[in-house]
């Protein structure tokens, strides 16, 4: 029997705004409204909004919340309340279960934002690893809707809603009353532009969606989001990294803090991987010849297959771009070829990100 698709609380609002809804890992979400190119342009030049209510929110609460987070995440969470950081969650072998952003709410409470497709897996992993810690792990995803408000003008537009939003620093979180209800607002995003993400009660975020629509934000879909994040060099969990890859292979060595106070899952393996170096790593590619590379396309160097693309798309800024695992000898600027529908097309290896504005 076909599994019924889940709708976010913003489903009707997205539909009314012209959203073309598709099945995204079991969720009905807008892939686009007016069009991916127009939406991409809005986010790069002004402001766009994305319904990301499918993402997960998990609380770690208790005396050992900090110690527990340090033990499951690669980054160092020795942070003052209000700050957050990006990290990877590793399995015992050092493979990437998921990537997260966790925020310190206070010394005994952290909010962990996880990917929708990995939510159940992450939660089960956290529950399993929490044994022996004085911590409560609670999946609160169903209580939250989430809206990403992104673009160089996003914060200017939001000033009318609450002037304090502009004061929030990159990767900080703040509790804010919007339309009479408490929300969390974070200066984060997945587009490579400045902006915020708001998590709050469903009815409140629905009100925020309407307010944003009337105040300069263009509704944007998953299509534009995928182009924006790949241009910005952000990895897609489950595609660009999974349990068969470690953070060093994923070119994310910076999120592994081997010197932090606490031990963490697969730390010894990570130390060894770092010392020995990796055989393969994730690189970006720009297609120079005619054609658009897609996920799965093979990468060749001097006639020999050296890897495959894990993400690829048309990019309004760079024509055709992709990312994929290749031998670690491949350097920024190396000439390679990508097989597009049976034809080898000239391409260039590029150190990601392709685009940097923040």
């Amino acid at each position, binding site marked *: 029997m076909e599994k019924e698709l889940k709708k976010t609380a913003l489903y009707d609002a997205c539909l009314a705004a012209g959203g073309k809804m598709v099945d995204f890992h079991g969720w009905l979400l807008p*892939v*686009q409204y007016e*069009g*991916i*190119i127009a939406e991409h342009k809005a986010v790069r030049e002004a402001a766009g909004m994305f319904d990301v209510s499918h993402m997960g929110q998990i609380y770690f609460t208790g005396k050992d919340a900090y110690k527990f987070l340090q033990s499951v995440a690669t980054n160092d969470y020795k942070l003052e309340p209000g700050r957050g950081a990006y990290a990877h969650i590793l399995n015992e072998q050092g493979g990437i279960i998921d990537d997260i952003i966790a925020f310190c709410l206070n010394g005994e409470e952290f909010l962990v934002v996880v990917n929708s497709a990995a939510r159940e897996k992450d939660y089960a992993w956290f529950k399993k690893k929490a044994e022996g810690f004085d911590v409560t792990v609670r999946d609160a995803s169903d209580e939250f809707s989430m809206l990403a408000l992104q673009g160089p003008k996003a914060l200017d537009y939001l000033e009318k809603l609450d002037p304090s939003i502009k004061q929030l620093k990159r990767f900080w979180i703040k509790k804010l009353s919007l339309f009479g209800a408490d929300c969390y607002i974070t200066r984060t995003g997945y587009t490579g532009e400045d902006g915020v993400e708001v998590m709050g009660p469903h009815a409140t975020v629905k009100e925020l969606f309407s307010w944003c629509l009337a105040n300069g934000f263009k509704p944007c879909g998953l299509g534009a989001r995928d182009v924006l994040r790949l241009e910005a060099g952000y990895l897609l969990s489950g595609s660009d990294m999974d349990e068969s890859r470690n953070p060093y292979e994923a070119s994310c060595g910076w999120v592994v803090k081997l010197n932090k106070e606490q031990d963490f899952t697969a730390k010894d393996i990570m130390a060894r991987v770092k010392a020995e170096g990796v055989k393969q790593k994730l690189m970006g590619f720009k297609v120079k010849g005619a054609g*658009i590379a897609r996920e799965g396309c093979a990468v060749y160097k001097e006639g020999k297959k050296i890897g495959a693309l894990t993400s690829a798309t048309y990019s309004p800024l760079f024509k055709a771009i992709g990312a994929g695992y290749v031998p670690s000898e491949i350097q920024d600027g190396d000439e390679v070829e990508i097989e597009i*529908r049976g034809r080898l097309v000239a391409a260039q290896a590029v150190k990601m990100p392709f685009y940097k504005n923040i």
Partner: protein
Amino acid sequence: MYEQEKCKFAKTHEWAFVEGDTATVGISDHAQHEISDIVFVELPQKGAQVKAGERCCVIESVKSASDIFSPVSGEVTEVNEAVTADPSLVNREPHGAGWLFKVKMSDAKEADALLTFEDYKATL
């Protein structure tokens, strides 16, 4: 202009506008709308033989590639270089400047078997 009412349609959303033994081929307004932002068009080679119902070129949007099937058989006598240079022409004028290629038909009866605009509309 290759007006919709004067074109014949394949179920796979291509149109053929027939003048004598030559058919001009494009994709329907419905198809361009469904594909949305067209960013790349790979046309057949001039002189190539195409067969009705067979894949002969590719139209790509930001996120996907769509195969285009020739509605008629014959030799490609002309390709529209303008859509290679500016693929968005196919979105803007699917029945005009966004035409794809011309075929010297080997079997004129094939075009008769295609759908009229009214019949095509009924399939959507």
